[in-house]
């Protein structure tokens, strides 16, 4: 059974038909990436999965269970954690308080403590700055914090929305290395990216999204060689 399965999902913003029949699967333990240009519907797909936007048609299934009846906060409780685009940290709270908020739904103190150690091991910078106000962190550190906070919820499926946005190349590489590490520790990852080259180099499989439709899907390595992908998203002629 797939970890996550979208079947012919249609979603709207008002009259705008944003998702026009998306079907995709994410297997347990995979890194799957969703690439596409601005406005293709990448973020909308994530919002549909997390329940922030309800599909008008089609189903979203988590381990075989239809998510339609669950509101957003219940879906988080079922093990889906999202790192929103533009990082979405609580800017006025400290790093430690932000991480605390991530573990908001959990009640196992011991487990939370262990996970805190784990994210501090993944992101040593955050440990150094744990009493600093999150809004004063650098862009890269904020991205780390957003990712760390999502991990504090102990998700089985981690949704990342544009983790590379606005970051220096060296930081992008660091973030992507960490994503691989998180995946190797047993978390399934669905990665939405505009930086297609980076995304395809760490993902197992990929989907290409265009104006609300999946136009292409393959192994990541194959997509990287695909002529159309190279032309449209990798900037190669």
């Amino acid at each position, binding site marked *: 059974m797939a970890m996550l399965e979208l079947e012919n999902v249609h979603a709207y913003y008002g009259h705008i038909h944003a998702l026009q029949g998306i079907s995709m699967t994410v297997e347990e333990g995979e890194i799957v990436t969703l690439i596409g240009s601005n406005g293709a519907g990448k973020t909308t797909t994530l919002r549909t999965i*997390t329940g*922030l936007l309800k599909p008008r048609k089609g189903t979203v299934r988590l381990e075989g269970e239809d998510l339609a009846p669950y*509101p*957003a*906060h219940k879906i*988080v*409780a079922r093990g889906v*954690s*999202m790192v*929103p685009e533009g990082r*979405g*940290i*609580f*800017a*006025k*709270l400290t790093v430690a308080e932000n991480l*605390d*908020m*991530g573990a*908001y*739904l959990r009640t196992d103190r011991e487990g939370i403590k262990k996970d805190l150690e784990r994210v501090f091991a993944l992101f040593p910078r955050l*440990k*150094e*700055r*744990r*009493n*600093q*106000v999150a*809004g*004063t962190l650098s862009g890269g550190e904020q991205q780390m914090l957003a990712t760390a*906070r999502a991990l504090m*919820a102990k998700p089985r499926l981690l949704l990342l929305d544009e983790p590379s946005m606005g970051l220096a190349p060296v930081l992008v590489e660091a973030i992507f290395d960490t994503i691989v590490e998180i995946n190797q520790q047993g978390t399934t990852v669905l990665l939405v990216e505009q930086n297609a080259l980076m995304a395809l180099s760490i993902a197992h499989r990929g989907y290409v999204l265009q104006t609300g439709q999946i136009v292409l899907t393959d192994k990541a390595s194959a997509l990287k060689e695909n002529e159309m992908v190279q032309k449209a998203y990798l900037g190669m002629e």
Partner: protein
Amino acid sequence: MNQAQDTTLLDWRTAVRLGLLGGVVTLYFGAIGMVLTFSVRNLLGTFVNVGQILAVGGALTAGYLTGRAFIKSGQRKSVIPMGLLAGFVAGLPPLILVIMGTLFPINPMFVNINDELVQLITFGLGPAAGSIALVVLSAILGLAGASFELMNERWRKALINGLLWILLLGLFSENAATILEKFIGRSAVRWMFQNKSLNPIAAVVLFLITFAFSYMGTGEKGRRKWETMPPAAQSQWRRYFLILGIIFMLALPWMVGQFLSQVLFIVGLYVMMGMGLNIVVGYAGLLDLGYVAFFAFGAYTMGVLTSPQGPGGGVLNFWLALPVSILVGVMFGVLLGFPVLNMRGDYLAIVTLGFGEIIRVLAYSNWLAPIIGGAQGVLGIPSPSIFGFELNKPEYMYYLVLVGSAIAAFIASRLRDSRLGRQWMAMREDEDVAEAMGINLVQTKLLAFAIGAGFSATSGAIFASRLHNIFPNSFGILVSINVLSLIIVGGLGSLPGVVVGAAILVGLPELLREFAEYRLLMYGILLIVMMLVKPEGFWPEAARKRELRGEEEAWDETESVPAAAD
């Protein structure tokens, strides 16, 4: 502090600008009649009154600001002449009042610019000599204000302390007299306060005492001693202070008399409302401008249920009607919450504003008049009583709001540190992220509205049983604005801030009744100055202080992390 922070040097233009600002403010105060109204309050004997202070206060402030600006830019030498210049310039605009008052009859337009005002600001010396006196005095005060910053810390603090005490006792001489009578006897008080103001000799004595205390640094020494104390001893002392505080609060109405007890009672009502609105606005970040509606629900429920003249026929006594009132408030809190679930910021504010007005209009309406009396209101609401003992004096009712506020504060502080409190905080910071974190926004929002409404309804119920008669016009928009202002002035999200804010915004105007017509002007000035100088409020909550007080503190914390982490 005295280092040059700005590289650009200031010149005379700064002084002139600040001086003009001070002068124009004075001109404005004079033209709207504030100077004249305030001149009724004598400060020292019959020589100095608040109106005169207001007339030259602009010069003093301009001088002070000029002095500070020049010290900040490292031009210590220019402080004195520039302060003098600023004061001099500040003395010029008020002359317009003199010219207009004597040469041009513009009374029809500016009723407040008249002979009396001219007399006042020219110190009764006549227009020509008086004008010169006014400008000279302004210049001297500008100089005094500027030299303030040149003094060393100890002197300055002592001087401010001494002057503040004189101002305080002079301004509230009547209230101070009633309190002091109980401690130092009637004849001593008679001597101290003549002509409804402080006797000049008494003022000098008072100044010397407070100055000396401050100069010796009694408070400073105490603080240092406190900081070096071991934690165990600190908590011991804290307990003593707490007990002392409780005893003080319990004894308060008997020390201050009936009038001040009534003022304390009203402050208490606003503290309770503030605690509630603080949850809605401060914790949860939902800007609610219709908060008075719940106050009205509490008051009307109490009135209808307990008044023998009402349709309820006085079926319930206060203690049985109180929980019903709270319940009604909570219910309507949830009811208001539902339609506004998806609204944020400005839109939420507008809708809640409308809701508050709807409730007031309904209270006025003929439609509901058979139940709640329309414009006639509900009359004959009885006082609460305990075991047959009627709480019919402000001194007794004070205890009721004291207990009520204490409970409200306790609940609010427990909620802040609870899971729910964290949900509110997360929602305040970012609704989307909060939802992505697994927080049920619907429940969280409704709980904020409901609990906030409950506090307000409690306050309203007590209000009704103290006033005995309630009318729709007691529940206007101004109450909502008052409560909102007081939590902002105190510091959004902070509990002690609510008490400080209520004391300043509700208590002070009650004590300065004759200035009531300038109440809203004062609010406006206070809020603007607060936002510029102390945006986090008088007693801010930690997170907000961090946000608004720059990054220096945040960085300091980082630096101490390695030590804390090891």
